[in-house]
């Protein structure tokens, strides 16, 4: 296995960016989602609208930010409003093509937990909660999750459903009344995963160069659907790496 000349963050950003089509409306959060979206915007998708849930649209950050509430994320925004102007008249109106989400845990049905995990004894540890995540998971046409590939994070069942995926096998999501399309991609540091949307289950789509299939399977807490032939994830191009390193994240804060 040749040593790759790119980092895990870089192939994740590149894989995420390639899933984005020009002209789409995309809700992004801090970190790799934003990096992936900016990479797409700087290459094949210059006309995407990036949306920040609390009311910022069309921004073009030039300095690394510490979160969505950091005005660095709002630089050169072309629209300010409130949650109502983003999660309302974009998302609930059915006009968000891709919602990026992170989570503490994701399960085989794409359900996500960002609220709490059990601690020692009967205790719980409480985390960030939903923010807009539940709404985005419920209502966006496609959900893209970017996360580390670890068995404790990719679980058979999450401990708390903060943000619904397919909820369970079959058409449970639709019968529950959820209008968005549901989970669509999970980009990890080992693979690109997708979903069999009819069955509501996670499926392995490609493995990053240099990663073994067993490594993926062992670090996943449930059985992944997969085709017999598994392609390798296309690695980042020289142009993409140059953009990532020199323009989008020059201080290496996220990648």
């Amino acid at each position, binding site marked *: 296995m040749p040593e790759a000349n790119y980092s895990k963050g870089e192939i994740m950003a590149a894989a995420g960016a390639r899933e984005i089509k020009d002209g789409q409306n995309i809700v992004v959060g801090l970190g790799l989602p934003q990096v992936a979206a900016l990479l797409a915007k700087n290459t094949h998708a210059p006309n995407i609208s990036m949306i920040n849930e*609390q009311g910022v649209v069309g921004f073009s950050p030039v300095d690394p930010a510490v979160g969505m*509430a950091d005005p660095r994320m709002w630089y050169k925004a072309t629209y*300010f409003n409130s949650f109502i102007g983003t999660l309302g008249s974009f998302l609930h109106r059915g006009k968000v093509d891709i919602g990026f989400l992170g989570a503490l845990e994701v399960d085989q049905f794409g359900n996500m937990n960002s609220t709490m995990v059990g601690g020692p004894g009967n205790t719980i540890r409480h985390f960030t909660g939903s923010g807009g995540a539940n709404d985005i998971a419920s209502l966006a046409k496609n959900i893209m999750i970017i996360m580390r590939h670890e068995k404790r994070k990719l679980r058979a069942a999450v401990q708390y459903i903060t943000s619904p995926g397919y909820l369970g096998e079959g058409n449970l999501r639709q019968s529950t009344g959820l209008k968005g399309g549901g989970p669509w991609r999970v980009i990890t540091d080992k693979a690109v995963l997708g979903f069999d949307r009819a069955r509501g289950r996670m499926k392995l789509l490609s493995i990053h160069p240099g990663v073994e299939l067993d490594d993926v399977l062992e670090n996943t807490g449930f059985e992944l659907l997969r085709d017999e032939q598994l392609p390798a994830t296309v690695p980042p191009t020289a142009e993409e790496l140059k953009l990532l390193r020199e323009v989008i994240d020059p201080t290496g804060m996220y990648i």
Partner: protein
Amino acid sequence: MVKLNKIRSLSEAVASVRDGSHLFLSGFAISRNAIAVAHELIRQNKRELTLSQCIGAMDADLLVGAGAVKRYIYGGGSLDRFGPLWNINRAIEQGAIEVDEFSGLSMALRFLGGSLGLPCIPIQSLLGSDILKNLLNKEVPEVKVTECPFTGEKMVLLKTLQPDVAFVHVQKADCTGNAIIQGPRWDEDAAKAADQIVIVADEIIPTELTPFLVEEVRIPAGRVSMVVHQPYGAHPTSLYGVYDYDREHLTEYASMARTPDGMQEYLDRYVRGVKDFSAYLEAVGGLEKMIRIKADALKKY
């Protein structure tokens, strides 16, 4: 023509809050928080408060840490990469406060509906989640799963929210209450949902100027009860176009709030142990610090 002067001191405005009130504070994570108000509520030892926010923020975390809060209604939150809302998470883990946890949009719609005087409003997220399951299990229901009578679609009906008082930190206001918010305004509808609105402005502008800035006026005088002039009142959180967040102080806060003892020490050092917000500003670095965090005119941070 005489214009109604609604200017009050911070302590007067906060003194009008009754124990047990339902308050809204304007913070979102580490931006445009009503920090001066939170400090004064703590110094005046207000108790048994209900707080509601779309996204939890430092202003609420301070009040929970000071033991002033009985119930917190929110949609999740953090201090961005400075850390979690230590006091709020700890109070939830220990069952020390009542918590109604929603999502960002469901809180926003509850406030929007409240701002319009609607008794309830529907939403089509929450379905299928444990957030909804938890809320439905509560004794006082504020959510109900139902169907649209016109389309047959499933929806969640939410009881709307109308806080007693909203404290909203803004960039500029005139003395009659016309308030200018620049940048995103996650708090605009929540403010209008409240029965009384108290504007806390970093800068007071003359009423003659207001018509020239009308496109940026987000809360109209007719809805505002009081105006407080409090420069740097959002510190250490950022005020878009005016000052950046104070990285140094937020790091100190996040580190001290990590433990109950550390939090009490923070409150003693910066809130209860100082005379007023001016003394706090001196304690965190005074003029030199404020010059350092001044926002760049183009970048706005």
